[in-house]
């Protein structure tokens, strides 16, 4: 048998049909659904008299629109159109009989945090969702990627997706991370190297000692931003940490089925002599705590660096960099560590898990948010919130002056009331620093939770290592 990559193995295990021209029907094991990209798909089913083929493999949770303030049970905290969208998901989940975690359920949260937490996401699965950060689930060795609403409808109706196979890219992070350097810095460092289009057409498998050393939470952070590098999906081969994370979760297999699953999962790795279309190797010790300076996730620099000049780039990036500097209100040559901020946002499907909150609490313990800084922590799910309260993290955040919110996507994309005002500058643990992403005219700097916590204390972009 010819050697295969992990991607090849998962692909082959889900091929339901292959046409002569190579167009494939890939079977989908888990379909995650949220309120923003699904209403038109359900409407399409109704208009054509179609049903959901596999409601038991379809899981819905509202996350993008929902307010994260403590008074959100009061429907007036939502705008009319948001309320309609959430109500549509309530109704669609009920009408089509799919698994559902409503806003009132403690298990509600960001779809990419709820899926793994509830044991829906397991190694070797195919997972899709009408959301680009579906890549997150690749941390389990599941082939997971975002789809558009037409494809959501296609999966609802047929439990398959029409696909052509992507190319294989290996990204190896060798060695050990230095103090203060995290999974977020790894994934940002990769995008800094490949650019936001560098992964287009590929599925990336992350491997190497620094990846193996990461917790499942950290691995989810790495895979989450595979999409920011343009890749279709990110993957990490499952290992003992993966099995330990999955075991005992509500929807993970039990007993004999667990043993059978484990036997199969242990075959899910790239063969030694597998062929790669592209290989990137980064030394972990070369990665510093990173921040973005511009309006593309590829605009990455160590916190110790200076804001670059537009003419230090080439091609179309010269104009794009100048536009980014103007938008961000930065001047070439300025020290990044001198850039003052107004807001701190810790949360999102990138960094809204318990380990992220622990990292932030580590820095914030006994400290205060600088006067005048708005700072909020939005846990990724109700269960993450509950655990953080149990561990005493919530008290650290509240004592420091952070708002301690309910679960949701919140200021990552600012579809709910959590937004930046024009010109406001935010230290954010989310995944996109696009123009207007966190609110029209808002300025976003992406970084790790520890770095965001440090920025909250000093009121400017800060090297977290100085506080460790």
């Amino acid at each position, binding site marked *: 048998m010819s050697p295969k990559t992990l991607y090849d193995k998962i692909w082959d295990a889900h091929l339901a049909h292959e046409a002569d021209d190579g167009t494939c029907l890939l079977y989908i094991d888990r379909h995650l659904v949220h309120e923003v990209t699904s209403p038109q798909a359900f409407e399409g089913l109704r208009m054509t008299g179609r049903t959901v083929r596999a409601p038991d493999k379809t899981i819905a949770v509202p996350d993008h629109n929902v307010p994260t303030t403590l008074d959100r049970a009061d429907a007036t905290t939502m705008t009319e159109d*948001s309320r309609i969208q959430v109500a549509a998901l309530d109704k669609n989940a009920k009408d089509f009989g799919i698994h559902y975690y409503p806003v009132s359920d403690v298990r509600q949260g960001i779809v990419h945090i709820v899926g793994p937490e509830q044991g829906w996401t397991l190694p070797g699965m195919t997972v899709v969702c009408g959301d680009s950060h579906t890549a997150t689930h690749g941390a389990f060795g599941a082939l997971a990627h975002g789809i558009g609403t037409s494809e959501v409808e296609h999966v609802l109706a047929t439990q398959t997706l029409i696909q052509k196979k992507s190319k294989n890219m290996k990204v190896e992070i060798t060695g050990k991370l230095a103090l203060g350097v995290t999974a977020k810095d790894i994934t940002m460092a990769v995008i800094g190297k490949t650019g936001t*289009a560098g992964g287009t057409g590929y599925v990336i498998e992350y491997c190497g000692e620094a990846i193996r050393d990461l917790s499942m939470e950290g691995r989810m952070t790495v895979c989450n931003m595979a999409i920011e590098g343009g890749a279709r999906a990110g993957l990490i081969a499952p290992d003992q940490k993966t099995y330990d994370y999955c075991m005992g979760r509500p929807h993970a297999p039990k007993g004999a089925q667990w043993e059978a699953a484990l036997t199969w999962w242990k075959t899910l790795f790239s063969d030694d002599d597998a062929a790669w279309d592209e290989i990137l190797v980064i030394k972990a010790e070369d990665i510093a705590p990173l921040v973005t300076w511009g309006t*593309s996730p590829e605009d990455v620099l160590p916190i110790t660096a200076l804001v670059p000049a537009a003419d230090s780039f080439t091609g179309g990036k010269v104009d794009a960099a100048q536009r980014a500097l103007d938008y961000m209100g930065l001047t070439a040559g300025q020290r990044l560590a001198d850039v003052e901020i107004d807001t701190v946002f810790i949360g999102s499907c990138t960094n809204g898990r318990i380990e992220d909150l622990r990292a932030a609490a580590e820095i914030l313990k006994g400290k205060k948010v600088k006067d005048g800084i708005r700072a909020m922590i939005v846990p990724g799910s109700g269960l993450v919130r509950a655990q953080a309260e149990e561990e005493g993290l919530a008290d650290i955040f509240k004592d420091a002056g952070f708002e301690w919110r309910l679960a949701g996507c919140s200021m990552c994309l600012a579809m709910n009331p959590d937004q930046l005002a024009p010109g406001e500058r935010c230290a954010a643990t989310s995944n996109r620093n696009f123009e207007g992403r966190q609110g029209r005219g808002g300025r976003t700097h992406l970084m790790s939770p520890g770095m965001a916590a440090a920025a909250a204390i000093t009121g400017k972009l800060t090297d977290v290592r100085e506080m460790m």
Partner: protein
Amino acid sequence: MQKFDTLTGIAAPMPLINIDTDMIIPKQFLKTIKRSGLGVNLFDEMRYDDDRAEIPTFVLNQDAYREAQIIVAGDNFGCGSSREHAPWAIADFGITCVMAPSFADIFYNNCFKNGILPIALPQEQIDVLMKDAEKGANARMTVDLEAQTVTTSDGDVFNFEVDAFKKHCLMQGLDDIGLTMEKVKSIDAFEETVGAQRPWV
């Protein structure tokens, strides 16, 4: 779905690289439960100021390009989120073809579900097309999907690649759910076999 075969029209030049889905359709317009009506908000934050007045320097606000049916853009067009609202807004505005050196994967796929043809061409050919687009309303390009060619107003012809299945569906305006439903026996068989092998799924 709207068919696409040939198109002769005005092309709007947007040389910026990394035009992302938040630029194409900002999140405040994703709260709709319909597919239609988003054209007025296409490129909303680049197109209108805080008072909702048109920003005259933005290309689609210029008289020459108000009727544009094509966009010629910089590298990595459509990067960012999976929101199909991006192609919905583009199509609703009246644009049915986007040309760029490369496209983000999900956006590229979404276009084909909405009667939009995304054409990836090498940078040097995009440079020629960009110059042609900059000539304004009198310079019309022609796109022929059957022949897989783009012809500039000067008569330069560029060939482009497109997946045969996607081309077929776009030219016929086919609903791909219907096509997949024809293979339901394969899906049934897969579920039966694999359901026995991996019952935990």
